């Protein structure tokens, strides 16, 4: 079934079966492998993407349910997003495998709550597991980014 999804500001044709989770469409068909698989059951957050600005688990969303929603993946942040800069500055990643999902959850958090307190960070980030235990730096990097100029919701690039 051919359909079109809006990913990182571009309408893209996809042919995957309609029940295919968005995660595997992004990774296998569209080659956007920054979004990771970690559990497949909405437990780990490795697959987090933005759907119309909201952090969602792409492993739980069949591609047929995407419709006209705008999808933003880690690749869509552009590489120099303030959160990405903070991640690099504080050397947050260890193995790095969870970090795309962590950053996407943090982007959604700051878009909603530009100066989050500890409780807000916990609420937004507890769905993202980091087995390397980079949690302390993840929190510090969110605060670092939040201390800078306001983080804009990710603009969809044409």
């Amino acid at each position, binding site marked *: 079934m051919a359909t079109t999804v809006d990913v990182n500001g571009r309408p893209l044709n996809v042919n*995957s*079966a309609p029940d*295919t*989770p968005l995660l*595997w469409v992004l*990774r*296998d*068909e569209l*080659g*956007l*492998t*920054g*979004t*990771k*698989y*970690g*559990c*497949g*059951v909405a*437990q*780990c957050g*490795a697959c987090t993407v933005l759907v119309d600005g909201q952090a969602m688990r792409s492993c739980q969303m069949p591609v047929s349910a995407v419709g006209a929603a705008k999808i933003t*993946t*880690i*690749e869509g*942040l552009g*590489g120099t997003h303030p959160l*990405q800069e903070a*991640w*690099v500055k504080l*050397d*947050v*990643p*260890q*193995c*790095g*495998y*969870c*970090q*795309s999902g962590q*950053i996407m959850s943090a982007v959604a958090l700051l878009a909603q709550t530009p100066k989050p307190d500890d409780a807000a*960070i*916990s609420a937004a*980030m*507890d769905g*993202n*597991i*980091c*087995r*390397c*235990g*980079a*949690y*302390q*730096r*993840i*929190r510090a990097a969110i605060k670092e980014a939040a201390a800078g100029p306001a983080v804009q919701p990710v603009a969809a690039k044409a």
Partner: protein
Amino acid sequence: MNKPLTDIVRAPTRRQALVVGATLVGGSLLVGCSIGDILSAGSRVEVGAFGPFLKFAADGSVTVISKHIEFGQGNHAGLAAIAAEELDADWSRVSVEQAAANAKLYGNTMMGGTQGTGGSSAIFNSWTQLRTAGAAARAMFVQAAAAKWSVPAAEIKVANGVLSHASGKQAGFGDLLDEAARITPPEAPVLKDPKTFTLIGTDRVRRKDSRVKSTGAATYTLDVKRPDLLVAMVAHAPKFGAKVKSFDAAAASKIAGVVAVHEIPTGVAVVAENTWAARQGREALKVEWDEAKAETRGSAQILASFRDLASGKTAAPEKGGWKPFDSRGDAAKAAAGSNALEIAYDFPYLAHATMEPMNCVAMVGKGPTRLVFGSQAPTMDQINTAGIVKALPGSIQIETLFAGGSFGRRANLKSDYVTECVHIARKVGGGRPVKLVWTREDDMRAGYYRPIVHHTVRVTTDAQGFPATWRHRVVTQSIMKGAPPGMSGGDIDPTAVEGALGSPYLKATPIVDAQLIMPDVGVPVLWWRSVGATHTAYVMEHTIDQLARRAGKDPVAYRRALYEKAGARRHIAVLDLVAEKAGWSSPAPAGWTRGVAVHESFGSVVAQVAEVKLENGQPRVGRVVTAIDCGTAISPDQIAAQMEGGTCYGLSATLYGEITLTDGVVDQGNFDTYRVLRNSEAPTVETHILPSTNPPTGVGEPGTPVIGPAVANALLTLTGKPTLSQPFVKA
């Protein structure tokens, strides 16, 4: 893994044995050959003018080739810094490249010369090697400049990647590349006096991979793209040791995108054009299993059998019975004596649960066999693969990628998931790339756990309350059983008792009777971040706090006195440092209770003071002050990162980690049933590094085993009760 691996050169077939043998005795190339020669025979890895570890580009940039995989512990940055220091390179222009698989060029001296990453040895075993490589290349550039400028070499300075002379002449590595490459490398270049280091030990030594890991650009095995790539998933037996009896692939084959179904030794593989089709295909598969040889016990039964052995309720079998691992004085007296503290501890199976489940890409059947994945033990993986494809181990090409964590899981004596992928790729044939994908459930149910462990400890004390006799019984499955003879360590599997064996507390005790028994269980087990220390540190450190409490002594002062008796200077130093930084002598912040623990592993000694409270009956850990003696600190920031991460990993297991089996079937499958530490539960770890000029020792693992007992000791102070089994929070 510190024995020579002579015995692992087991050729897979007789013909293969002859090939290896012939190369051994007759090949002119390999006269006087070493284990590295044998294991690298057939390799096509090329070495440049500056040796196997360094490459220079015309623009002056430097590439350090890492023989070790980077799966989180920051070793790539550390290794690069060692070479860059001796080179006097410009750190901002140094990058890291992953080495190919070649035991001769890239063997690990801590792993008998085979190539592999583990035992927190990456930095330690590379220290002299990379310093030498850097110093040799530096000398070549200096000599090239001296010849070109007609000045004495001794007058040339190198700083930040620039060679210069008082006359005003100056050049970068790139400018002198051709000339330097023609110079014979000095065999024993002069290494720097560590006092003159300008990079090592500074905060400038930062990760090189943070950006690619923050943009989604880093490539892991799951991300491998190749034209024609097929994705495979395997239906595995629900019980360990079961085999395929029969299967029906009719429904699976009808799923769009499924291209083949193959029986392999570990199950039935569904091969498809994409991941989702492979998964759907596997779900449609019907498999019957032959469970005649399967392990059918539950974990509770297994643990009960361990306890019965320790208590003497069950007699030890004649073969494979109790083996002493430490004894001092009159052992018979260790069983006697009244008013003893007698404690039994239980530890469950633990899954590594790396963030990226196990996976591999293999290409078999056209040219040399090629593997692309996060290989932790390339030589082992080559040997195990060679046995399947009937080739020389050294001819198996491995491209090692970043891996989404390992914690020991990827260094497997059987290369379990690697050989599974090779079997499938061999059936597919034609050199077509096959990516084996394990789901989280596959990964969690595949075994290779930290084994169940039981300890019984009986300690009597002298008039001052210090241990007078110490009887110790350990029951656990051997991790090293089935390892090649050169590796297995004989009667006592060192990985089962390390940390109890060598403990300063036992050294300080006049009478010691410590024994180990290793019953056979059909659940595969493996090293898990910090290995034996995962339980020995807990048992020793929590026992010591209970003894201090009985003696009415402060836990820090009590430890200090025992370390004095044992001559454990490094323990004293980290204990003093942690006590000072944590403010041990003043009260803990209101609502918090402190606990201390100290443990030596992988050459490093770590002390922690944890601030703990109970919230809704569950422990919450706040500030954790850490002191570490890891010899020369290469990257203070990455040492801190490893203390932070290692602490979370250890705390996650202590509080929540548990794999259970019911009638041989693993009960957990995903993070909903195998609880792990979440962001809001993570402590704030503060790291203090003891200044040292000794060679660098481990940091990847030593931060893991200390937090458990530190928290248990805080709870002991808070509640008056010891915590004798893990996890603390039962599911």
